[in-house]
């Protein structure tokens, strides 16, 4: 039946299509759609209505709530049936609104009970009336008894016969037009009521993207933690053990050749140096204390290690999520690194506060200022981390200082 290649949008076909042949096909499709629609609409409409009545008589009763959800489930089932009608008879592929969207779900109920139901039932009745009238006009002269008269004329005479034929053709034409119009109307109603609106679609997409981005950020975070643990359990323990053994050798082998002794001392120092470097690297990946004890504990660690004198004031009575904590931690860590590298500052003040659903961070140094957020990779890296949790930030850094970085991170309450 009049199924078209997917590239032709169905709406165009039903609303603006032209040409004689096309017109006949559209009329045929529309008629089939309306004829099939009548019994379907009666069934789906009654199903949804029954579910609705059940819900209505149980209002106020605990089971009422379940019934309300059952209406939506029944309605959804009916939408699926209707979708196959649109697809099979008109070639219109409806993208049904996902069950998650309750507003769209209730709109679907109204389609089954009112809009779609009326279009199908009234449309079908009108179509049948037109057909019957056209059929009567054609068949009247044939089945009329010989010499039967109407309005004083013999129906088999050429004049009334041709008059009736013209009326029949006109009625048929009207039925065809009506079928096309009904199909177009039904398509519009179904698209408006069974599909998501553009705004809803976008809102859903935004929600989807937000969730998937949060997943990606969490996954990256989990990966850092895994690497940290692997290094902690593996390389670090091995290196500590190696350094200890070299230390024992150094302490006990006192009467060996000075060259050998020098080599041992050298190896011992190297091992300790490697240990320090590895420790700093691993802690930079993800500090275990952040998970155990939160921001205050983790930040005092980096503040103490900072070469610039650092004061820390953390007032976060309620811990934010692990991801937000990690972002806050790394943002401050990165900011401190920047201060040490570029600012030529004597002191840094770090403030972290929680105000409702916001985590407020302020890093203030007394350095030379002139930090350009767009210039360094450090500040850009900060921006990416902050954006990944929908946070915002600002840098205030006049030439001559001071530089103040303010960050706001939203945290779920």
């Amino acid at each position, binding site marked *: 039946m009049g199924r078209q290649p997917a590239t032709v949008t169905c709406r165009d076909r039903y609303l603006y299509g032209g040409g004689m042949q096309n017109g006949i096909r559209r009329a045929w499709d529309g008629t089939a759609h309306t004829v099939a629609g009548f019994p379907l609409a009666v069934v789906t409409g009654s199903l949804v209505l029954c579910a609705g009545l059940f819900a209505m008589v149980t209002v106020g009763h605990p089971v009422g709530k379940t019934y309300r959800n059952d209406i939506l489930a029944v309605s959804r089932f009916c939408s699926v049936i209707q979708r196959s009608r649109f697809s099979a008879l008109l070639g219109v592929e409806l993208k049904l609104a996902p069950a998650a969207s309750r507003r769209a779900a209730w709109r679907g109920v109204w389609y089954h009970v009112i809009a779609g139901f009326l279009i199908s039932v009234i449309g079908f009745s009108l179509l049948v009336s037109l057909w019957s009238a056209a059929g009567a006009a054609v068949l009247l002269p044939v089945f009329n008894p010989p010499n039967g008269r109407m309005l004083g004329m013999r129906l088999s005479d050429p004049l009334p016969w041709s008059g009736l034929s013209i009326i029949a053709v006109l009625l048929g034409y009207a039925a065809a037009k009506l079928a096309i119009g009904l199909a177009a109307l039904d398509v519009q109603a179904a698209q408006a009521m069974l599909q998501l609106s553009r705004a809803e679609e976008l809102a859903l997409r935004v929600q989807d993207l937000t969730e998937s981005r949060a997943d990606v950020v969490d996954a990256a975070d989990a990966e850092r933690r895994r690497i940290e643990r692997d290094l902690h359990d593996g390389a670090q323990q091995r290196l*500590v053990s190696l*350094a200890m053994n070299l*230390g024992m050798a*150094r302490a006990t082998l006192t009467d060996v050749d000075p060259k050998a002794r020098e080599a041992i001392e050298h190896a011992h120092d190297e091992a*300790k140096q490697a240990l320090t470097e590895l420790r700093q690297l691993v802690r930079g990946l993800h500090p275990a204390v952040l998970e155990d*004890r939160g921001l205050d504990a983790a930040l005092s*660690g980096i503040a103490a290690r900072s070469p610039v004198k650092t*004061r820390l*004031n953390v007032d976060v009575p309620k811990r934010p999520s692990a991801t937000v904590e990690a972002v806050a931690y790394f943002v401050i860590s990165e900011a401190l690194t920047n201060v040490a590298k570029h600012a030529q500052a004597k002191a840094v003040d770090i403030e972290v506060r929680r105000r409702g659903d916001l985590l407020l961070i302020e890093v203030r140094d007394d350095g030379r200022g002139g930090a350009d957020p767009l210039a360094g990779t450090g500040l850009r890296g900060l921006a990416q981390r902050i954006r990944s949790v929908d946070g915002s930030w600002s840098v205030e850094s006049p030439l001559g200082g001071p530089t103040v970085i303010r960050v706001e991170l939203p945290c779920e309450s």
Partner: protein
Amino acid sequence: MRVVIGEDSVLLREGLVRLLDTSGFEVVAAAGEAETTLSKVEELQPDLVILDVRMPPSFTDEGLRAALVVRRQWPAIAVLVLSQYVEERYATELLSGHTSRVGYLLKDRVADVGEFLEALRRVAAGGTVLDPEVVSQLLLRRRSGPLDRLTKREQEVLALMAEGRSNLAIATALFITESAVGKHVNNIFTKLDLPPADSDHRRVLAVLQHLNERPK
């Protein structure tokens, strides 16, 4: 001296056992889990327990919690906590209550065998040993206050004092005379309004109490 070791890395555990056995300590038990270590401590009542912070099953702070249990239930047993990273917060928890017979060191310090063994003996003898990193973390807690009035040299002395070192040890570390150290110590106690304290570990206590007063 009888020692129980709780360390989950086999390599390091065996290394520690070897080191202590050859240095005049007697390792009576070594375990890889905090629970097992605790039951060994209960059973054997050693003089000293060495605990790694991160141990199975959750690899977060089991060792630290075990250390707190030991300190609460058997205060006569000395505890030394080893950690891959020293965190000021862990130190504060460990030292809350009383500050004798306790130590908290970075695992790296094991490499300096002599100093490590010395630290063990100090803790077992009733002293306090804190890693220099913890001390520097504690020093920064104050937003502004009397610590800012200390000279750089006095701050260095304070840090070494908090590690539980004697005047002589501080003098050696800073290449100054013992009497100079004494002068610095007096200045520090005056500037910080601390009651005078004679023994090394009471000094640590006083300093730590002062440092632990959180700014609000």
